[in-house]
Structure formats: structure tokens, C-alpha cells
């Protein structure tokens, strides 16, 4: 059923795809993490207008399909004269989309720290920033890490959206191999195999990290 010559004949295409998938995932991972922190700060900062901007951002990007976010960059921005190739618009879309989930995870984690912790820190004379930095954030970190790992795992799988906008990722080259060989099952079987090679180590790593955090209590 699985024809291994598909792999041996096209390994260069698959390899190129894996490389671009990893690159897009890493770029989107770093970008969405930074952006997610900024948006989470917007949402919890004691400034009303920032709260509204953060909430609007999260609600908008979390509630439209990823494909539409990517289309916004791939098909929408050219209307304004900004043309990006598939790889860049796909990675940007992925980054924006994931950042809204990460912002929510971080916000939930910070708010899960009992309010008394912050109040006690403030009452003992720390400023808002100091209370956050030394009391609330260290406790929030433990709560936040499992859902963020989950989001990064989803990000790697969602990067297959680049295949739709010719982003040269693993999915895109899977489509090409399929179109070349007409062996649909084998072409995509290898694509899923390579995605598993990327995601299973991530999944195991996040689980062991969770266990370590649980032990440190």
C-alpha cells in the first residue's frame, strides 16, 4: 500500500519542505510568544484603553479561521500595495493567530494567582511592576507553561496552512509529490510521518516539563 520509492525518489522535496516547516514554525513561535506577552500585558494592565485593545485583538483573531488570517496577509495586504510571498504571509498569519491564544493562556495564568498575593505584595510597599516581577509572575509561570506548550504543538501542525498559499512547506511539497506521482496515499503518508517526527518529540518534551513543574510544586 505504501510505496517507499516515492520517498527515495522525492526525498529532496520532502527535506526542503521539512526545513521550511521548521523555519516557519520557529519564526512564528518566537513571534507569537513575544506578541502574546505584549497582548496579555495589554489585557491585564490597569489602563482601560489598553484592556479594550487587547480584548478586541484576542476576540477577533481567536474567532476567525486560521485560513482567513493567512488570506488577510496573502490576499488582503496586496490591495494596500504590500505584497508578501506565501511563506512570509503564511508565517505572519500563523504568528498573529497563535499569539491570541498565547495571550489568553498568559492572562489566565496570571489571573489564576490568588489576588491576595498581589495585594500583600502591594501592601508591603512594592510598586505594581515590582509586585508583578517578584511575586505574581514567578507563580504564574508554572500555571502558564503547559497550555503554552500545547499552543506550540498546535502551531507546528497549523503550519500546514502554508501549503494553501504556496508557502513551500512540508504540506506544499506533499501536494507536489502527489501531483507528480499520482500516488496520493503514499505521498501524504510520508507527509504525516514527517509531521509526527516533528510533533511527537515536542509532545514528549512538554509532558516531561509538565511533570517536572508539578514535582517542584
Amino acid at each position, binding site marked *: 500500500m505504501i510505496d517507499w520509492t516515492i520517498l527515495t525518489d522525492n526525498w529532496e522535496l520532502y527535506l526542503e519542505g521539512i526545513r521550511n516547516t521548521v523555519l516557519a514554525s520557529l519564526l512564528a513561535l518566537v513571534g507569537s510568544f513575544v506578541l502574546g506577552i505584549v497582548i496579555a500585558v495589554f489585557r491585564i494592565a490597569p489602563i482601560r484603553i489598553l484592556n479594550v485593545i487587547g480584548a478586541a485583538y484576542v476576540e477577533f483573531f481567536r474567532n476567525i479561521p486560521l485560513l482567513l488570517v493567512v488570506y488577510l496577509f496573502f490576499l488582503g495586504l496586496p490591495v494596500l500595495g504590500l505584497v508578501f510571498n506565501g511563506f512570509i504571509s503564511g508565517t505572519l498569519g500563523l504568528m498573529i493567530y497563535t499569539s491570541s491564544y498565547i495571550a489568553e493562556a498568559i492572562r489566565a495564568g496570571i489571573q489564576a494567582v490568588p489576588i491576595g498575593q498581589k495585594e500583600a505584595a502591594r501592601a508591603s510597599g512594592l510598586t505594581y511592576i515590582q509586585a508583578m516581577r517578584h511575586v505574581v509572575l514567578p507563580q504564574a509561570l508554572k500555571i502558564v507553561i503547559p497550555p503554552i506548550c500545547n499552543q506550540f504543538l498546535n502551531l507546528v501542525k497549523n503550519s500546514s496552512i502554508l501549503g494553501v498559499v504556496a508557502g513551500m512547506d512540508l504540506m506544499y511539497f506533499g501536494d507536489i509529490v502527489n501531483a507528480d506521482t499520482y500516488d496520493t496515499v503514499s505521498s501524504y503518508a510520508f507527509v*504525516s510521518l514527517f509531521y509526527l517526527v516533528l510533533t*511527537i518529540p515536542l509532545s514528549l518534551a512538554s509532558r516531561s516539563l509538565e511533570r517536572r513543574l508539578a514535582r517542584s510544586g
Partner: protein
Amino acid sequence: MDFLGAYSPDNLKFLLQGFGLTLWLALLAIVCSFILGCLLGVLRYAKIPILSQAVGLIVETIS
């Protein structure tokens, strides 16, 4: 009605059809995935030798 372009009544009706299907699909998938998820969850929790591992494999590869 040509001046309406993409917003002509015909196109809007067409989009609305898709919207209806999206709603149905979502409802169907929510109900079915909940039921199937409960079943798989119980199977995995029950630690029935081969069945539990099979469910674990499905969960790990798909999710």
C-alpha cells in the same frame, strides 16, 4: 443590480447557504465529537490492555 458587484442578492444568498451548512457542520461535529470523545476517554481510563493502547495511539497521532 450590477452596481452591487460582489454584494448582489444572488451572491449573498449563495454565501448564506454556505453559512447554513457551516452551522450544521459545527453542530453535528460538536455533538458527535463529544460523544466519541467521552467513549474514547472512558476506554483509555479503563486501562483495558490492548484497547487502551490503541486509543492512546489514535489520540497521540491525531491530536
